[in-house]
């Protein structure tokens, strides 16, 4: 069966880095900051070490994408254009029908371009909350250099960004890892060779599949 290239090597590399750093951040974050889950920190040899893992993973989480954006500027601009372009009624209709489709995968959805409208919508929140969680994390890390009144608000900002990111991450894993039945095999695009099958492309992104032919 024919495979179509979907994710570049650079995109897959950043995704790998983010997969690892994000999971470490969530794990150590829960272990450190929820007293009932302090025991989880034993995996890294206690709370002090888990805190170091949280900090270092945070710098990787922010630093690697920044370097990659600077290194592949044109690709990043193209991606941002894609993310912030709404393709009219098809996108709106798809977005409206998607929640019901989650519970009835046999339903038909309007054709989508390279990114489904739901992917774009998720990307806005993932990009936004990632920026806010990074910014607040940096201020919390260097707290003694900032005024207390600012630092105090960074804690709820860090946590609310985490909640938004966490909700989208759960949905992202469910869909992207192909736990959701129509998305089976999708993992190859990010964790495998960067391709999807022609069949998958036609089913998920028919407008894009036509262009790629």
């Amino acid at each position, binding site marked *: *069966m024919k495979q179509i290239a979907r994710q570049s090597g650079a995109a897959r590399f950043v995704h790998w880095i983010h997969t690892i750093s994000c999971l470490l951040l969530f794990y150590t974050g829960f272990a*450190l*900051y*929820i*007293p009932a889950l*302090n025991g989880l920190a034993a995996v890294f040899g206690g*709370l*002090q070490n888990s*805190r170091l893992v949280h900090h270092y993973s945070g710098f990787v989480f922010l630093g690697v994408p920044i370097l990659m954006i600077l290194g592949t500027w044109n690709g990043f601009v193209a991606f941002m254009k894609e993310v912030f372009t709404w393709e009219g009624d098809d996108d709106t209709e798809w977005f409206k029908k998607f929640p019901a489709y*989650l*519970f*009835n*995968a*046999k339903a038909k959805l309007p054709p989508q371009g390279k990114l489904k409208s739901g992917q774009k919508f998720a990307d806005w929140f993932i990009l936004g909350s990632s920026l806010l969680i990074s910014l607040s994390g940096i201020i919390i890390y260097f*707290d*003694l250099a900032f005024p*207390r009144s600012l*630092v*105090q*608000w960074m*804690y*709820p900002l860090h*946590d*609310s960004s*985490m*909640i938004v990111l*966490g*909700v989208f991450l*759960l*949905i992202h894993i*469910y869909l992207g890892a192909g*736990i*959701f*039945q*129509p998305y089976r095999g999708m993992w190859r695009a990010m964790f495998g060779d960067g391709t999807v099958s022609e*069949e998958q492309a*036609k*089913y998920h992104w028919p407008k894009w599949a036509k262009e790629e032919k």
Partner: protein
Amino acid sequence: MANAVLIDTSKCTACRGCQVACKQWNQLPAEKTTNRGSYENPASLSSKTWTKVTFKETSNDGNPEWLFAKTQCMHCTDATCVRVCPTGAAQKTELGAVIIDQKECTGCRFCVENCPFEVPQYDETTNTAKKCRLCYDRISNGLGPACAKTCPTGAVQFGERDQLVSSGKERVSSLTEKGLTNANLYGDTQLDGLGVMYVLTQKPASYGLPEDPKVPPSAVLWQDILKPVGAIAGGATLVALIASFVANLGYKPDTPKGGK
């Protein structure tokens, strides 16, 4: 039994015996300081200075007045440090003392940044937050804290909180009778009752004490609102995704017409 400290500023001579006794009992080293044009020294609390006497020069009806007050951890009943501490290192003990367990503290500085009295101080060498612990080792053995023990004028009293509240009120009314009309008792109601109360001869602000100290609203949002919101949001998402998976059990993709 909740213990407390009552500091009677009308009896304080600013001898700073309490500062020395605190350093001695807790084995805290001296700090090198510079002359800032005030007897108040050092400039602020630190990881090595857990109590210090503030010297405030004010004027009272045109007459100069020098106000002295011993400052340290307030041992709040509703303590912000206890609310925000992520490891349970900061605790309000049954003896009334708020302590930071140095073995549990990870140096996150949440208490340092959120205490309404700006009391806990970060120690880089131990990577922990430090502050007055009401001489927990002494009071749990039936002794008063070192500062109260050493105070030569009786300005620092340690005892049962309820008793101190009533003796504080009595002292305020006797001071008022003597013409100190601004005299007031500070700390009996703030933050559900402070473990350190003051008989003040002037308004709290003159001593640099906040009139109405509060747990910062950002800390309430963070600890009391976002935690349940996060749990509900995460839980609801998981339930929805599991329901979606179950609803689509047995799903088979359509075979494309004419495809291989």
